[in-house]
C-alpha cells in the first residue's frame, strides 16, 4: 500500500483573509445546509471523514483521508455550486492546506489566532458546533471518525489552553464588549440594572444588546423628539422618552450610553446637578461615544460616576489588542507542541499494529523454543523452569525494545514509512499487522517436537 509521507489531511475554504464579506456570505452554510454538504461530499468523493466549519468569517471543509485530489475537488465544487455566479472564479477565493498545515491551521482557528479580532472567544464555540454537527449525523462510518474526532477534540483543548495560559483573550477587543466588562466590574451582576440610551447610534444599540444579554432589564431611550425614540425603544423592548425628561430619568438609571449627533452636550453638568443636588449616591457608568461629546466631562469628576468617552474606550481596546498581539508567539508555541503531539498520535495509528504483530511473532517463537527446550530437559525442577522462562522473556524484551522505540520515533520524525516497510518485509506482515500470505509462521511445538524426535533418532542410530 502507498502511504503518504505527510498526514493525509486537507482543508479547503474561504476566510476573511482570502475573501471579502460579499463572497464569504455566499459561501456560508446554514447548519442544515452544512449537514447536506457533508453527506454530498461523502457520496461524491468517497471521503471517509469530513467536518464543515462555517461562520460569518470562514467556511472550511476538513477532510480525511486526502491522499488524492478527489475530496478537495468535490469540496471546491460544493463551494462553487453553493455560491453561484461570482465576479471571479470561486477557486480564486479559496485557500488550501495539506498535512500538518491542516492541524496547525485548525489549532490557530480554535485559539482565535486566525480570527478577524485576534483572540476572540466565540470561535471556540463555533468549532465545537461544527464538530458536534458532524458527529451527530447518523451515518456509518461516522462523519467525524477517529482521526477528525481526535483532531477536533485536540483543537478545542488547545484553544482552551491558549486562552488559559496566554494573554490572547485578555481584555475586550470591541467597544461594546468593553462597555459590558466595565459594567460587570462596577455592578457585579447586571441583573435588574437600568440603562439610559441617548441617541440612536448603531454602536450604542450594540452595547445595549450586549448588556441585555447580561441581564440588564430597564431600558430607556431618550431622543430630541419622542417620535424618533420610539422605534429604537420598541426594538430594545424599552421605554421612549424625550430629552426634556432626562432629569427625572437620571436618578433611576445605573448606566448611560450616549451617541447623539447633537452639536453641544445633551447632559450638561448643570442638568446632572439638578438631578443629583447632593451628588450621586450609587455608582453610575456613563459611556459617551458621541463626537462632539454628549456628556459634560466635569460629570466624570463626580465621585460615583465612571465616565468613559470614545477615546478612552478606543485606547482600552487598542491596549488589549496590543497585549493580544504580544501573546501570539506564546500561543504559537502551544500550537506547535500539540501539532507534534497529534502527529505522534497519528503515526502511532499506523505503527501500533506492526509493532504488535512483531512482538506477537517473537513471543510465539519464544514459547515454541521454550517448550522445545523443556522437552529435552525434563529433569528440570519447576523453579528452574520458571527462571528460564523469565530469562527468555527478558531477553526477548531487551531485543525488541530498541527496534520498538526507534520505530515509534522514526514515525514521529516523518521517516518512519520506510522503517515500517522494512519491518513488514522482515516480519512478513501486511498493513493491518496480519501475517502476509506465504510468510513463514513460527514453528509449532508439534512440528519442532517431530524435528527433535527425528534428530534424536538420527543421533541414536
Amino acid at each position, binding site marked *: 500500500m502507498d502511504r503518504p509521507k505527510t498526514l493525509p489531511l486537507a482543508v479547503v475554504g474561504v476566510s476573511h483573509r482570502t475573501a471579502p464579506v460579499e463572497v464569504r456570505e455566499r459561501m456560508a452554510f446554514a447548519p442544515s445546509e452544512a449537514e447536506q454538504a457533508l453527506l454530498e461530499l461523502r457520496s461524491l468523493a468517497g471521503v471517509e471523514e469530513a467536518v464543515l466549519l462555517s461562520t460569518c468569517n470562514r467556511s472550511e471543509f476538513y477532510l480525511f483521508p486526502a491522499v488524492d485530489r478527489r475530496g478537495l475537488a468535490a469540496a471546491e465544487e460544493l463551494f462553487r455550486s453553493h455560491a453561484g455566479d461570482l465576479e471571479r472564479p470561486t477557486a480564486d477565493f479559496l485557500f488550501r492546506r495539506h498535512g500538518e498545515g491542516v492541524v496547525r491551521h485548525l489549532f490557530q482557528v480554535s485559539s482565535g489566532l486566525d480570527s478577524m479580532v485576534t483572540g476572540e472567544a466565540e470561535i471556540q464555540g463555533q468549532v465545537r458546533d461544527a464538530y458536534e454537527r458532524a458527529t451527530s449525523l447518523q451515518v456509518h462510518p461516522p462523519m467525524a471518525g477517529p482521526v477528525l474526532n481526535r483532531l477536533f477534540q485536540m483543537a478545542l483543548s488547545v484553544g482552551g489552553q491558549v486562552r488559559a495560559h*496566554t494573554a490572547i483573550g485578555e481584555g475586550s477587543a470591541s467597544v461594546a464588549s468593553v462597555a459590558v466588562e466595565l459594567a460587570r466590574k462596577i455592578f457585579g451582576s447586571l441583573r435588574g440594572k437600568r440603562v439610559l440610551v441617548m441617541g440612536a447610534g448603531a454602536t450604542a444599540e450594540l452595547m445595549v444588546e450586549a448588556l441585555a444579554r447580561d441581564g440588564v432589564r430597564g431600558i430607556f431611550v431618550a431622543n430630541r423628539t419622542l417620535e424618533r425614540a420610539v422605534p429604537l425603544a420598541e426594538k430594545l423592548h424599552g421605554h421612549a422618552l424625550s430629552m426634556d425628561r432626562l432629569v427625572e430619568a437620571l436618578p433611576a438609571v445605573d448606566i448611560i450610553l450616549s451617541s447623539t449627533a447633537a452639536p453641544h452636550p445633551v447632559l450638561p453638568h448643570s442638568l446632572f446637578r439638578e438631578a443629583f443636588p*447632593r451628588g450621586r449616591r450609587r455608582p453610575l457608568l456613563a459611556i459617551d461615544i458621541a463626537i462632539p461629546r454628549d456628556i459634560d466631562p466635569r460629570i466624570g469628576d463626580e465621585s*460615583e460616576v465612571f465616565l468613559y468617552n470614545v477615546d478612552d474606550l478606543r485606547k482600552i481596546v487598542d491596549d488589549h489588542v496590543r497585549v493580544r498581539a504580544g501573546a501570539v508567539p506564546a500561543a504559537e508555541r502551544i500550537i506547535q507542541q500539540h501539532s507534534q503531539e497529534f502527529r505522534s498520535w497519528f503515526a502511532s495509528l499506523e505503527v501500533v499494529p506492526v509493532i504488535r504483530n512483531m512482538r506477537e511473532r517473537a513471543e510465539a517463537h519464544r514459547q515454541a523454543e521454550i517448550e522445545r527446550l523443556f522437552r529435552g530437559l525434563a529433569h528440570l525442577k519447576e523453579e528452574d523452569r520458571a527462571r528460564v522462562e523469565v530469562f527468555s522473556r527478558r531477553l526477548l524484551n531487551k531485543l525488541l525494545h530498541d527496534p520498538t522505540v526507534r520505530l515509534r520515533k522514526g514515525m514521529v520524525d516523518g521517516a518512519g514509512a520506510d522503517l515500517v516497510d522494512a519491518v513488514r518485509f522482515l516480519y512478513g506482515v501486511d498493513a493491518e499487522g496480519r501475517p502476509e500470505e506465504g510468510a513463514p509462521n513460527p514453528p509449532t511445538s508439534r512440528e519442532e517436537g517431530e524435528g527433535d524426535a527425528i534428530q534424536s533418532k538420527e543421533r541414536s542410530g
Partner: protein
Amino acid sequence: MIHLLAFFLYLGAFILWVRFLLSGARGDGPNVASAVVGVAVVVHAAALGSFWARYGELPLAGPGAALSSLAFVGGMALLALLPVRQVSRVGVALLPFITVCLGIALLVGIRPSDQALVFQGPGFVLHVTFAFLGYQGLAMASAAGFLYLIQHHELKAKRMGRFFHFIPPLATLDLLGQIGVWVGFVALTLALGFGWAWTVQHPGVISLSDPKVLWAILSWAVFAVVLLLRRGRGRREYRSALASVLGFSLILGSYLVIRLTSPGSGFLP
C-alpha cells in the same frame, strides 16, 4: 512544628494569589491557591487541637496562642469564601494579616500564659472567641475595602490592567465589606458584653482605665463609626471602604502601642 507547616501553607497560598494577580488573572491560580488555603486551615486546626490536647486548655490565653487562634478565625473566614467565585480573591489582601499573626505567634512561642488567669471558664472562652470573630470581621472588611479602593482607582483612571482583571467587582467587595463589619460589630459587642458581665461579678479586678479595656472600647467605637459613615449621603461605598481600612489600621496600631507601652495589661492579675 504543625503550626510552622500551617504558616508556610498560608504563605504559599498568598504567593500563589500574587502570582495569579501578576499573570493578569490567567491560568488555574485560584483553584490551586484555594486548595492550599483549605489545607492550611485543616493543618492549623490540627495544630490548635494538638495544643489543646497537650496543655488541656484552649489556645486563647498567652500572646502566641491567642494570635494563632486569631489567625485561625481568619483562615476559617477565608475558607467560607472559597466557593464563591472571584470573592475568594480577597485572600490576597487577607492572607498577609493571617500569615503575620501566625508568624508573630511562632516567634513569641505558642504556649499557655505563664500567669494564672483571673477570668476563666465559659465566659472567658466566649469573650475571646467573639472578640477574635469581631476583629477578623473587620480584617475581612478592611481587606475588601482595600481592594475596593484599588478597583475604584483603576476604574476612575480608566485602566483595565492586571488589578482591574484580578479584583472582584465593586458591588461584590462592598457587600463583603458590609458583611464583615456587621458580623464583626455584633461579635465584638457580644465579646464586650461578656467582659463587662465578668467585671460586674468581680469588681475591682480590672478598671476602665486599663489599656486593654480602652483598646476594646476604641475598637468598638471604630466599628460604630464605620457603620455610621455608611448611612450618610453620597459616596457611601467608597467612604465605607476607606473607613474599614483606616479603622482596622487604627486598631492594629493602637494594639501595638499598648503592647509596647504596657506589656502586662489585660486580664492577668
